[in-house]
């Protein structure tokens, strides 16, 4: 079933990328099919103790395997990922207008992302997890940059990719160390590990999780990623991708719990992110950015709870993860609908939308209240579990971590209140005619998610029965915990009441205060500056190194050869050197030297080409003298082609060489002399240094039996070392394609530049690349 569902995803992705352009918005319905199927299958496995596995060995020697394992945790997460994914597809049908462009591409990318995410949550081998982790980075890059004509979206996508891909490298390094320390690649076989390797692995993996889950200071990419269409934000930046880091921390925490760095580092990431995210959410006026910063804050809370490592905290974290996916996706959808129908997301410009958009208003209030942790909604018992876990701490941990979690919760209530008041309550109600009509495809998924928040509370026993087995897979001691509908007048409940009261108060006060515009994203600007700086530096270095002067390139090559030949000087054994085997060689060498010298003296270009040919043919003669007919044949043919080819090329050049200056002449003499000496030294050095018997006898024997040929050289080429030949042939192809490319570019670009008026440049996703190629071509 695992293979079937993954294959279904892939098939639909491929199909959409071919036929999607003809389907328009209908491709979104098609994309929803695999997601719905996966969600349905996962739902049947929710809370099940039975485990479904699938896998195969990918690289046998390296123990790299593709392994999937759907246990209670995997099923819970894939139900969320695919279920919300299917809802987002439906929502997107309403979100995009009928004539929206590139819907096929959008649907295909969204589904590809969903595939990667499902693979990630099902992965059992760390290598499988890594591959799907990277796939989510790449697909999310494409989704954030969906509006690629917009420079803001492009920059945001690049920023997100650079940060998450850097995290991916960190993850790879961390996994290598982890496998070394733990002795297994299976996540299901994790045992606690300690030691310096484990510590390094813990740091690297935590950093990777922090980049993906937008932890401070890596969070800067997430608000920028709001440049994506809102369905993408609702899916990636609330429910799924940003949770990848949290999930990773959850499943791998049992291994690192005993290392010294795991908890402090995780707590620092989590607490800093929770507070900074909540503060950010209070400062912005764009409703989508408020939600984005709120998400950053919630992710901080999740990481904090998981880093605490107590079974209670882990239980709370997974419960909140579920509740958060439901309410945050709904809230993003609400903001998207407000944006589409009212034409703005700025809470200063929005006002009193509760009249004009009643359904949206109800959804927003339910989901917002769930986020704030107000009963009777799913968010309440999960938040209770978190506060319970925080109050269960002792000593300094209680004061610092517990205090900050409670403080963060107050801020959460505050920014939720501010957002809801800003959009739906404050000021004069917007006239209904200024609000576009309702689109059912948007309202339906919102309503489903809001209903889930309510029903989750009503059927809390079922939710516990689903979440608890999942938590038990990573923290067996969590078996005793349940989500409680009515905890009684416990400390936690009273704390909750205080939190909500304070939060409402602060939120209401802040909603009255008029903020003109949100803070500028300084962190993001710094990241962009760094990325651009690297590009600028590379361009400068390239301009220096790739100066375009052929003589200088040649001189550089010669210099390297000279330096490389220096070690051979000591290897020369004068006893092994002798003048010749055969007097014909002496004659040929005289011919070669004469021809080579005259090549530097002839003033006519054609003459020089012919003299160079003479050198080549004389070398072929040397091969004859040594009895190497294969080399002779090849050398003769190569020389022929080159000489005649020169004639073709010379047709475009002046018949005479330009007269060189005296200095340049001397320079060329030095370069040529150095090259000759270096090669001679290297050859003499290696000739006197043979190791072992020549393999000719063995090769000659196997040539007939294995290769079935009498020509040993050719059997080596086509059989014994056929892979080398294959590689060389590919090099030839690459060279040929390069030549073709350069010549066609030259032919194509220049005339338009001269004759035609400059055409409007098409939207180009990578103008820098084109420029770079242009520079090289020149």
């Amino acid at each position, binding site marked *: 079933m695992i293979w079937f569902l993954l294959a279904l995803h892939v098939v639909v992705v491929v199909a959409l990328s071919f036929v999607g352009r003809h389907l328009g918005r209908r491709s979104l319905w098609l994309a929803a099919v695999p997601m719905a199927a996966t969600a349905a299958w996962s739902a049947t496995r929710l809370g099940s103790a039975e485990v479904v596995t699938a896998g195969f060995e990918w690289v046998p020697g390296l123990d790299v395997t593709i392994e999937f394992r759907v246990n209670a945790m995997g099923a819970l997460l894939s139900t969320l990922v695919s279920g919300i994914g299917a809802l987002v597809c439906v929502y997107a049908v309403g979100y995009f207008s009928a004539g929206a462009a590139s819907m096929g591409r959008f649907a295909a990318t969204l589904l590809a992302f969903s595939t990667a995410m499902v693979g990630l949550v099902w992965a059992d081998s760390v290598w499988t997890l890594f591959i799907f982790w990277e796939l989510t980075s790449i697909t999310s890059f494409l989704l954030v940059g969906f509006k690629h004509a917009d420079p803001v979206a492009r920059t945001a996508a690049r920023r997100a990719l650079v940060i998450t891909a850097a995290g991916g490298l960190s993850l790879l390094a961390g996994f290598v160390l982890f496998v070394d320390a733990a002795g297994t690649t299976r996540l299901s076989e994790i045992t606690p590990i300690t030691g310096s390797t484990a510590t390094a692995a813990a740091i690297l993996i935590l950093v990777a999780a922090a980049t993906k889950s937008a932890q401070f200071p890596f969070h800067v990419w997430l608000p920028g990623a709001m440049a994506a269409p809102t369905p993408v934000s609702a899916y990636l930046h609330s429910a799924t991708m940003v949770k990848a880091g949290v999930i990773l921390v959850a499943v791998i925490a049992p291994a690192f719990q005993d290392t010294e760095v795991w908890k402090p580092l995780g707590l620092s990431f989590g607490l800093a992110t929770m507070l900074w995210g909540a503060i950010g959410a209070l400062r912005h006026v764009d409703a989508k950015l408020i939600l984005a910063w709120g998400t950053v804050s919630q992710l901080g809370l999740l990481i904090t709870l998981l880093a605490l490592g107590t079974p209670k905290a882990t239980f709370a974290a997974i419960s909140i993860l579920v509740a958060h996916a439901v309410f945050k996706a709904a809230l993003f959808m609400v903001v998207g609908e407000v944006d589409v129908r009212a034409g703005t997301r700025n809470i200063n410009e929005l006002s009193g939308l509760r009249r004009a958009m009643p359904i949206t208003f109800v959804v927003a209030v339910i989901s917002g209240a769930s986020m704030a942790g107000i009963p009777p909604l799913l968010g309440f018992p999960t938040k209770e579990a978190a506060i319970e876990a925080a109050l269960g701490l002792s000593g300094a941990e209680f004061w610092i971590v517990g205090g900050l979690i409670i403080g963060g919760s107050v801020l959460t209530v505050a920014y939720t209140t501010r957002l809801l008041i800003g959009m739906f309550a404050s000021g004069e109600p917007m006239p209904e005619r200024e609000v576009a009509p309702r689109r059912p495809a948007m309202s339906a998924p919102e309503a489903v998610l809001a209903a889930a928040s309510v029903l989750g509370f009503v059927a809390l026993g079922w939710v516990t029965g689903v979440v608890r087995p999942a938590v038990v897979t990573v923290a067996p001691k969590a078996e005793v915990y349940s989500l409680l509908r009515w905890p009684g007048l416990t400390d936690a409940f009273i704390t909750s009441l205080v939190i909500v009261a304070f939060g409402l108060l602060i939120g209401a006060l802040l909603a009255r205060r008029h903020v003109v515009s949100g803070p500028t994203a300084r962190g993001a600007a710094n990241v962009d500056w760094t990325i651009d700086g690297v590009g600028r530096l590379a361009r400068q270095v390239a301009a220096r190194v790739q100066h375009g002067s052929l003589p200088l390139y040649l001189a550089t090559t010669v210099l390297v050869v000279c330096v490389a030949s220096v070690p051979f000087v000591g290897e020369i054994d004068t006893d092994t050197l002798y003048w010749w085997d055969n007097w014909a060689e002496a004659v040929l060498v005289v011919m070669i030297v004469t021809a080579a010298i005259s090549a530097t003296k002839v003033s006519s270009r054609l003459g020089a080409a012919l003299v160079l040919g003479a050198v080549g043919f004389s070398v072929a003669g040397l091969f004859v003298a040594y009895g190497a*007919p294969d080399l002779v044949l090849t050398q003769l043919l*190569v020389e022929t082609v080159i000489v*005649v080819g020169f*004639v073709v090329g010379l047709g475009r050049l002046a018949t005479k060489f330009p007269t060189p200056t005296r200095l340049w002449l001397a320079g060329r003499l030095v370069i040529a002399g150095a090259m000759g000496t270096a090669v001679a030294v290297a050859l003499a050095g290696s000739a006197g240094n043979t190791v072992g018997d020549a393999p000719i006898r063995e090769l000659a024997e196997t040539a007939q039996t294995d290769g079935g*040929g009498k020509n040993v050289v050719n059997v080596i080429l086509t059989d014994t070392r056929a892979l080398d030949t294959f590689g060389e042939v590919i090099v030839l*192809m690459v060279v040929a394609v390069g030549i073709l490319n350069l010549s066609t570019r*030259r032919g194509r670009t*220049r005339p338009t530049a001269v004759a035609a008026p400059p055409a409007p440049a098409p939207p180009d996703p990578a103008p820098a690349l084109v420029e770079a190629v242009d520079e090289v071509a020149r």
Partner: protein
Amino acid sequence: MIARTSPIVSLAVRAVTPIALVVAAYVLFAGHNQPGGGFAAGLMLGAVIVLRTVAGIQQPRSATVWLSVGGVIAGLVAIAPLLWGEPLLDQVVVTWDVPVLGTVKTGSALLFDLGVVAIVVGLVLAVLDGLDATSLVDRDRTPAPASGRSGDAATPDDRGASA
């Protein structure tokens, strides 16, 4: 350009072409037991093409077709053994009796060599294309304003605009 001034060269190249093709085929087949092989055969064909281009008999065209055909052949021959569980590039030797030639022994290496031939020919064509040999021939046939002009390597671009 040579073609215009020297019908002898043109005629000689035309006369040599079929002979060279036969020799190239021979070299290709002989490679198994005697000097020769795909690279040599490809170069021989390449030499013929270069000569014909210089003589103005033909224009170097469809480098990409040769390259891709060669790449596909070599690639398929390389991968095919994997289908039978053999290592990459493992070769199969076939022996059979042919009426005139007697017993012929050949193998998948010959196919691989055919791919090499195509790639080498493609490379030669690509280089000729890169040197703009096409327009060299064209210019000789049409009265070109730029004929007799002695440009330099740095300014071969105006030809693109005038073509």
